[in-house]
């Protein structure tokens, strides 16, 4: 027959040790959330978090801000995808879109995150060009090629009022957030970025005299 007597509580010493451990963890959790805020963090929080808590909370994947904003209607909140084209073959037959139309669920979501990270990381000097070169070079093997064009396509949802007034389609529009040519020359991966049309300065005509 099962013994239903309540178990003894942990000893005084065990409770004291666990209280200190839990207290430390809760402070660490609060500092991780504060230290990863998209609004930035103070030097004090950064220092305490970085020196005392990040070293042991990073490895178990607990050094996070959990700031799941879902959307702010910013361009980077739209869905992103890759468009890879082989440059040493007829273009139409060798274009691959990732995630492809048959990909579903979390697998497709991971490709979208990679595409978004590729576009967004170009604004970070420490990460610039790393992912585009890596993703482009990743296509060399499967395609047996050494020259591809890589684009990150960004979907921009339409404003609801524009759809209602007929100025925009509910499907929204897609623009090229990033484009580059990635090629392998003598074992070295080269990245030639394309200047996107929306990044060009407007042409100013000389006034006629």
């Amino acid at each position, binding site marked *: 027959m099962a013994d239903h007597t309540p178990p003894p*509580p942990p000893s005084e010493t065990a409770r004291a040790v666990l209280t200190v451990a839990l207290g430390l963890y809760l402070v660490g959790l609060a500092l991780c959330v504060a230290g990863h805020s998209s609004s930035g963090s103070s030097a004090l929080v950064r220092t305490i978090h970085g020196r005392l808590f990040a070293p042991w909370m990073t490895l178990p*994947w607990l050094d996070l801000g959990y700031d799941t904003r879902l*959307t702010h209607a*910013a361009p980077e909140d739209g*869905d992103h995808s890759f468009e890879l084209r082989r440059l040493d073959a007829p273009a139409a037959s060798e274009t691959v879109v990732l995630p492809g139309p048959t990909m579903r669920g979390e697998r497709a*979501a991971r490709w979208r995150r990679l595409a978004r990270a590729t576009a967004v990381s170009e604004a970070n000097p420490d990460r610039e060009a790393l992912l585009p070169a890596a993703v482009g070079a990743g296509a060399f093997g499967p395609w047996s090629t050494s020259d591809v064009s890589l684009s990150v396509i960004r979907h921009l949802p339409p404003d609801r009022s524009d759809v209602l007034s007929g100025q925009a389609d509910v499907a929204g529009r897609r623009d090229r957030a990033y484009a580059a040519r990635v090629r392998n020359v003598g074992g070295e991966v080269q990245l030639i970025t394309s200047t996107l049309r929306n990044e060009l300065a407007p042409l100013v005509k000389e006034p006629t005299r």
Partner: protein
Amino acid sequence: MNATPRVLAAEPTLADVIGGTWMRFWFTPVGPWPLALVRVLGGLLALALWASYAWDLETWFGPAGMIAPALLTAWRSPFAVSLFDFATSPAALWLGYVAGGLVLLAVTIGLATPVTSVLGAIAFTTLLHRGPMLVGPADDVVAVILWCLAIGRSGDALSVDRLIGNWRGRPEPTASFRTRIALGLLAVHASVIAAAAVLAQLKGDVWWNGTAAWWLAARADSPLVDLTGIFLRAEYLMNLVTHAIVVFEMLFAAGLWFLTVRRVIVPVGLVAWPLIGVIAGEPLWGLAMAVLALGCLPARIESTT
């Protein structure tokens, strides 16, 4: 006249109240069922997330893959490392991946749980560190759930371990304070994650002007259901959905700490979190949050075996 001496009970000080609440919250032993349920459902979610890497494992992490370990120095903290960094051949990569999947399966069915629950958490987080740019909010929440399973005695019920114990005539497991700590940590994280999410959302105008639901629904690929037609016709409904998400997340984050509110908000969360996940195009995140909520069910938390 003789005055009768009266023994006055000392009024509890604020420190007594706080200390007593702390001790009750963290150290009151609880039965194994709530955490066992979290283990089964959290394990299934972890398996689903783990499986989502299978098709592209070599494309991403293989020797000639897109995400080489050298690239990760710009993405990872210097304190981060992944066991998959050392898988330098496709065979080693697949060996680690299959082994990790089997460990997570063992966690889900409750086989050798004291060992596999720790190994499962290590395997899962080491895969996340291998490709941090692929990680989504569901991964973050499931990592928390797996560590909590490793802390508590999650294999004491609904498990192969328990079946083996019954077969060998071992006594029923008693209530455990380790399980209580695990459930307490699940509740803390549920509250913190909901609070952090709502704070992040409220930095954007669309969560104030009531159009966030439209911007979520109008994305091209993420949404599981097309709500654009409904939101085009019914502006108030779109506003209501937007505000309801924010209000629910606020109530969930704060209400977990008040028993009367918790009795309502947690069951609501079991339905609301998956719905938010569907609207936001992050269904596994919604389900993971519901599993966190499951660990906060008042009747279960208070019960002792």
